[in-house]
């Protein structure tokens, strides 16, 4: 017995020594003599707004990371996670393998091949960056699932099932502390039966979910979710049909506020609000009433002012606020005099007093951006514009 114990202990010690040697042998040290580029970057710090509210909430195709922006790039039908570096002004696939061709699932950045599957395995208009991780939506078996990925693309993990989805980019997320709030921004739009729209709260730690808000309506959807402070804000859109006259109207039912702490929801603005944004520093709420215009509500004084009226090419909009200026994107909706012609897409840039700084012609859906850049979609490509010295003549730059 003693002999056997000795043999066992010897084997264990030898194995441990071999393991240590193996690990040390595979330690990589950079040769200091080589002419390498060292970029000094600091520790991961929180941005002013961790949940990045300045992006288009229901077309969240870009997310800010450390030193650049993450987005989903589709080339020849192959979608992959890409990173636009601010310093080099170039994009690169989020795959730390120099030998990789980024064209199959051995690549860390690879998402799906649209040509092969016919419908996307990942929603290509949905990417978030929060607390050092990327979050995407994967569609498998008809279910949209929340997937967490390291920021260098190195590992993927399914967190929770969200909503039934067959590849339509309609699931939106709002992050707050250690949870994510998910809703389907298409909802039951276009359907004539009553149905329930919900906001689900999912724990990022263990994936447990609960419904925190529900709304029953006809052809309804929850849109434009954002968090400011300790509240979650969103609008509800509903199509109503008069059964006698059979007339149909599409209205926004107002701006709603959900309190993260208490779990209560209340309507804060009862108007046809199609989008909104908040300046939490100055306690200002900006909201756009469909067909009427942009209002500024000063919470300290209680004053509510129409600062920019609606016009021909700005009947409804999506909004953004980067801490300095307001951005209103008309989404290509409603040009009064040329109903059959393709509606021009514009992004209006206003200051907080409602003075127009620029009216930028756009090629596709505008994703907005932070204080430095504005982003938009152009076919399958991403374009950007620097925010310094914006004017009507500012041009979009294609990211290859």
């Amino acid at each position, binding site marked *: 017995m003693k002999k056997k114990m000795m043999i066992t202990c010897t084997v264990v010690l030898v*194995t441990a020594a071999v393991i240590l040697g193996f690990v040390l042998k*595979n330690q990589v040290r950079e040769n200091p003599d080589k002419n390498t*580029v060292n970029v000094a970057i600091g520790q991961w710090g929180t941005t002013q707004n961790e949940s990045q509210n300045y992006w288009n909430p229901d077309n969240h195709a870009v997310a800010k990371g450390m030193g650049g922006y993450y987005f989903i790039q589709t080339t020849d039908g192959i979608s992959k996670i890409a990173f636009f570096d601010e310093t080099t002004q170039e994009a690169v696939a989020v795959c730390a393998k120099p*030998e990789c061709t980024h064209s199959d699932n051995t690549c860390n950045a690879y998402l799906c091949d649209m040509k092969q599957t016919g419908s996307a395995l990942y929603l290509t208009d949905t990417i978030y960056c929060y607390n050092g991780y990327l979050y995407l939506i994967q569609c498998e*078996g008809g279910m949209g699932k929340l997937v967490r990925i390291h920021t260098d693309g190195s590992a993927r993990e399914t967190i929770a099932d969200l909503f*039934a989805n067959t590849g339509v980019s309609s699931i939106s997320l709002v992050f707050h502390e250690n949870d994510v709030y998910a809703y389907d921004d298409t909802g039951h739009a*276009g359907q004539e039966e009553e149905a329930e729209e919900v906001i689900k709260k999912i724990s990022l730690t263990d994936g447990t979910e609960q419904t925190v808000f529900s709304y029953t309506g006809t052809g309804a959807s929850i849109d434009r979710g954002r968090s400011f402070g300790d509240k979650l804000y969103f609008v509800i859109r509903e199509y109503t049909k008069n059964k006698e006259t059979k007339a149909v109207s599409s209205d926004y039912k107002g701006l709603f506020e959900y309190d993260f702490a208490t779990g209560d929801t209340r309507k804060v603005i009862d108007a046809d609000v199609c989008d909104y944004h908040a300046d939490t520093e100055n306690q200002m709420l900006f909201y756009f009433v469909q067909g009427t215009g942009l209002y500024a509500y000063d919470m300290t004084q209680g004053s509510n002012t129409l600062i920019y009226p609606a016009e021909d090419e700005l009947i*409804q909009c999506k909004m953004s606020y980067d801490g300095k200026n307001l951005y209103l994107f008309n989404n290509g909706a409603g040009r009064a005099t040329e109903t059959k012609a393709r509606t021009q897409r514009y992004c209006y840039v206003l200051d907080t007093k409602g003075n127009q700084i620029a009216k930028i012609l756009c090629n596709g859906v505008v994703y907005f951006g932070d204080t430095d850049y504005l982003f938009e979609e152009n076919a399958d490509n991403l374009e950007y514009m620097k925010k310094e010295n914006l004017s009507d003549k500012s041009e979009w730059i294609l990211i290859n």
Partner: protein
Amino acid sequence: MGEVKRVFHKKMWILIAVAVLGNLCLFLYSELAGRSFTEMFFAAGQYQKLVERYENMSLEQAQERLGTEFGNIRKYAKILKQENSQEETKNTAQNEMQNSRTAENAVQKQTSEELLSEVDEGSREMIAYHQSLTAQQQTQLELQLKQLRSKLEYLNGYEASIDTVMANAENMKRFRIFSKQNTFSYSNILRTAQDFERVQNVELKLDNDKGADAFVHYNLMYYIAAALMVAVIYSLFDERENGMWQIVHNTPNGRTVLALKRLLLLAGGSFAILFLLYGTTFLTAMLLYGGVKDLANPVQTFVDFGKFTYTLSKGAYILRLFFLSWFILAAFSIILWALFMAFRNRNHTLICTAAFVGIEILVYQKIEVQSVYNVFHYINVVSFLKISDLYSTYINWGFQNYVFSVFSVALFFLTVCGLFCGIFAVMRYAAMRPNTKVSLLSRMFTAVHGQYQRVFAKYPVVLKELHKLVITGKALWAVAALIIIAAYFSTTGQITFTDAQKEYDKMYLEHGGKEYGYIEDYVQERLEAYRQAQEALEEAAAAYEAGEIELKEYTAAVSVLQYQRQVVNTIQEYQSKLSYAEQIRETTGQEIWLISDRGYEEIFGKYSRQREFILILALVTAIMIIVSESIAMEYRTGMYQIVHSAPNGRAAVMRWKITACVVLTIGLTAAVYGIDIWNLHHIYGMPYLAAPALSLTFLENAWGGLAGHVSISGWLMILLLVRLVVALFTMTAAMLVSRAIGKKGNRALMPAVLAGVILLVWILHQVTQLV
């Protein structure tokens, strides 16, 4: 030596010989790829000649020359075909006009003679050779030319691809997401550059590596070697069932020393088995394709080895692969031996091993390589048995500054596992006693069992035969496993339907079926509403232009049109269904019902294939395992002579046995598919069973149009009947095997027939996918 002779007895050598021959047949079959032997040998010969033609040129020259000559061959063949077709049709009046047109074209296009006079000498030579071959041979030659062209493209691009990797490594360090030091990303970039630097100066040349390439990519021999080692290990434990355990345990050197000898036997045995399989396959590949002299060329000449970062020749790689494979096989054998040591009953170990391998296969398939759990994908039995793929694929793992190749981690893990399992097995063998104490529970069980037998003696023979199959033969485990598999796989992988899809299904349920006028009206109403919304918007635009209405009213009209557009999108499925119904009415005169495809596609459409395959495989395997004991058991226990001597002990007993087996088979089939249908019905529902099967669009052309003659319930019955027939066929095969095992005492026959039945099920599965 005694152990070697005991384990590697005559039958084992016959099994090994059969395995080696079977392996060679499988290798040849994989190389045939649907061709005949003549075609295969011809293709191999052609490839060799083509390599000899181009190998003395530089790679760029070879690629250009081959491209030109191949292009000219095709061009000449096309012109010749046109000329021949003109010759054939020039006498018919109907084709006079065509001839005149063709004749006109012929004046403008080249003739074959003109082409021959324009091209270079090499092309003329190739064209002449191509034309001297038969049509089939020409096809083979063109295939070889295509393969060689791809090969040359790869060889020419290799140096550039390595330079690209080095350039990428430098370039990536400029980007912030990769440039943070002390992170795995950064370290991996450095490590990749260091690894690929090793092969930066490797010079490739064109050679005949078809044989070596085919050999290196052939993995079945490792599976066969593993199966043979399972048989070897199984026979190491014969002493537990032939009464020799007590004697062996008590003889000098019968414990630890014997265990160490068996350890060496496993290492040596795996070497010998692998050497035979490996060597014979390699020789066959070389005889088939040649290329022995080219084994000295770099291994990167193989097209799939563009990212292999060691400077080895092909011969050296093949040799290294042999020793790696041997090491892995030996480690597996030791781990399996340790598992056998953990259980007293070796059959229980086999079942556990089979279950473990099944789980490993599932894990390997389900876990993606990008997943955070991909360690279970790479450190996996399936992955290890694809040794060459694992070794030649460039993938790294690690953390911070520590970067390891996946292969080295996997091999290391296996080594440590094997070491500890080996120690455990040796120590356990020495300590494990042949006899255990009879516990109180065991004595109580014996007493109860005696009473039970007295009562059971009065039951009919058929029930006793069933009892023998299920209880005495310990087949309850197989039945339980079958039920669990049926329950699991009939609920796994279910599709979640969106709310929109559920709305469609609700519409079909309430207003679809035989009379679907409501849906037709519904569709027409929505189309009309959209048209009206378009008109209303045009009027609103004009009115707004004229100042007759305000912006708000105009906005409302825009919203209404947007809404109606979305509504039209939602009725597309109904439109498509109505159009299908119209098409069936016109082509077959049959009136179908308007029902949803969704649920039925999951139940027996294209989404059900994997589930159905697993269920039929599990059923067939369970039937084989259970029924194969029906006759063999009596021979093994010595009861055969008593039964055969008793009155009604032959034909009558056989009839009762067959009845029992049929009842069991029908029972198991009913259980498996009952659970399956119950669960599927619960998940997806089965509405409109009386509807014509053609109502389901995916059955339009299924099984030669059989769906046009039955209802959906009829179709389900046909599917069940087919499965029952397969099960009964398996039962018959199992009874024949049982008879053979019993009479000849050859228990190795059962696994062989089981493997054959599984193969047949797999073939049927492939065939039904084509129907």
